[in-house]
């Protein structure tokens, strides 16, 4: 266990270092002088010199990299070119929205996906399986930002059941917050639900035909208990795996969903930054996404070894 943990920690740290280098080099690959990009409107030679000194752009690259890592480690992502506010304070307001949206979406997707997957496996060859499979295929194929558009058009605007856009912070009014975020979360969760459903179904089919389930049936356990107590246990691993693997897709999805529903989160910040050529913000966004991916997947792997002891022994998540 300790060996596995150490290996994974070392691998994650290495990936983190590499991705920081990629982001650092990527910013240097921007067209033109980075000082010019950072300067925004004020492009006097004095201002450019000040920026070069402040960001250490007059230093050799390895020194610049070390300084960059040092600043980032202290939470200093620079200042937005457009608004003049520190990027870190933009992040503190934007991130909670995205985290809430994603967590809610994962919860909805897990409920729908595991439920439909179990149903499809248990009702093999019946209409329920066919329907669940069809829905999963559609869920994989539908552009979910389009579903969001339709939901706004036919649910929010037409019936007024849900607000079409906007956001209320969770701490300000939890109910109103939920009212604003539930529709985007359902939309974001659809694609993930489809993937979880398909994985759950095949995992369930495998375990339902396994020896230990046959034993459980043979000793006279009720069918429901066989499913919940023996077969369903494995679907927990499925959910954890899918969420870990699909985290990148989830982040991409959150960006679009926020854009459509006008949620003031990480995604909207990202897209605005691209169009305003707000390089410090883009840099912070890319680096933070990579970091979040690496750190969360490290914990997913840990969780894995807790759920499935076999991984602890062999050190290889099958």
């Amino acid at each position, binding site marked *: 266990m300790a060996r596995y943990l150490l290996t994974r920690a070392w691998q994650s740290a290495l990936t983190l270092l*590499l991705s920081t280098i990629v982001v650092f080099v990527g910013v240097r690959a921007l067209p033109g002088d980075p000082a010019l990009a950072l300067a925004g409107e004020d492009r006097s030679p004095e201002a450019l010199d000040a920026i070069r000194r402040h960001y250490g752009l007059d230093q050799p690259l390895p020194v610049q990299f070390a300084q960059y890592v040092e600043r980032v480690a202290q939470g200093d992502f620079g200042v937005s070119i457009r608004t003049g506010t520190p990027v870190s304070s933009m992040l503190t307001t934007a991130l909670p929205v995205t985290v809430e949206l994603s967590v809610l979406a994962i919860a909805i997707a897990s409920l729908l996906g595991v439920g439909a997957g179990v149903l499809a496996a248990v009702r093999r060859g019946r209409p329920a399986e066919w329907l669940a499979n069809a829905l999963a295929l559609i869920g994989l*194929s539908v*552009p979910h930002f389009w579903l969001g558009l339709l939901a706004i058009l036919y649910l929010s605007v037409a019936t007024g059941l849900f607000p079409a856009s906007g956001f209320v912070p969770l701490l300000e009014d939890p109910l109103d917050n939920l009212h604003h975020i539930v529709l985007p979360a359902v939309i974001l969760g659809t694609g993930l639900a489809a993937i979880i459903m398909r994985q759950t179904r095949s995992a369930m089919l495998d375990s339902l035909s396994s020896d230990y389930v046959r034993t459980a049936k043979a000793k006279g356990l009720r069918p429901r208990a066989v499913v919940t107590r023996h077969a369903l246990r494995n679907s927990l691993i499925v959910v954890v795996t899918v969420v870990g693997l699909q985290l990148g897709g989830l982040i991409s999805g959150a960006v679009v969903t926020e854009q459509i529903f006008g949620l003031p989160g990480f995604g909207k910040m990202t897209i605005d930054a691209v169009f305003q050529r707000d390089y410090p913000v883009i840099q912070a966004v890319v680096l933070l996404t990579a970091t979040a991916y690496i750190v969360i997947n490290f914990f997913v792997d840990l969780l894995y070894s807790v759920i499935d002891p076999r991984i602890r022994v062999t050190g290889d998540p099958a």
Partner: protein
Amino acid sequence: MTVLTVPMAETDAVSITRRTRVLRRLRRNPLAVVSFVVLALAAAVALLSPWLAPYSVDQTDFARTFAPPGTSGHLLGTDDLGRDVLSRIMLGARASLQVGLLAVATSLVIGVPLGLAAGYFRAWDAVISRFTDLLLAFPFLIMAVGLAAIRGASLGNAAVAIGIAQIPGVIRVVRSDTLRLKSLDFVAAAVVDGASDLWVLARHILPNATSVILVQATVAIPAAILGEAVLSFLGLGIQPPAPSLGTMLATAQQFAARAPWAAVLPGVVIMGLALAFNVFGDALRDALDPKGDRR
């Protein structure tokens, strides 16, 4: 004497029967047939769209903006600038397929050699795994954001961003199939016979890995099509006035109250394309599965 005969990867006779078996299974699956016909039609329309489209994609008609579907001369209506929606959908679908193929080609060109190397050479495995981890840390949208910031937004950059994001998936399936094939007798026999690593990879492993690569490509294309739609919708992909299903939806969002159909049609086409690929991919995987007949 027969014991010493080195078996080939698959003799020609074996591969022919295997191919006919797979084709027979596909033909017997109605979903496979329907999705294949849909894809063939879509490909034909996409190829011929410059000639099939009733109007030029940027021919505006300000006297007839927001014409509903069924208006004479405009089967699917017109948009905010009076442009023909059917023509724009045809060329938009063409662009979607282009990005889909370009992205998947990118991911295969880079991913297949890396997957083979990772599975075949133990020493390379760790290095390539770190490379995969690194790629995974940048989701396609973030990759596209970065590329758009550095090189500007375009169809090509969108396809490259999506393709790069799909590389880890290709590496994973090719690597695991290479590991499986490497442990089989015919590969060991070739090595004993003195075949070089490159020869074994090119002549024995790659040909036998084509089926997993094919399935991977079939499921990667719809993902790339959806990705293109997302990027173009956000303005990070195909740039207006070039037609794209994603940008059509972005415009439709602004005018959704006046012309709701404009928000429906391009989405239906995107979904139809992706669905056809996904259904066909499923059918193909079932047909290629050696256990298929017993299930």
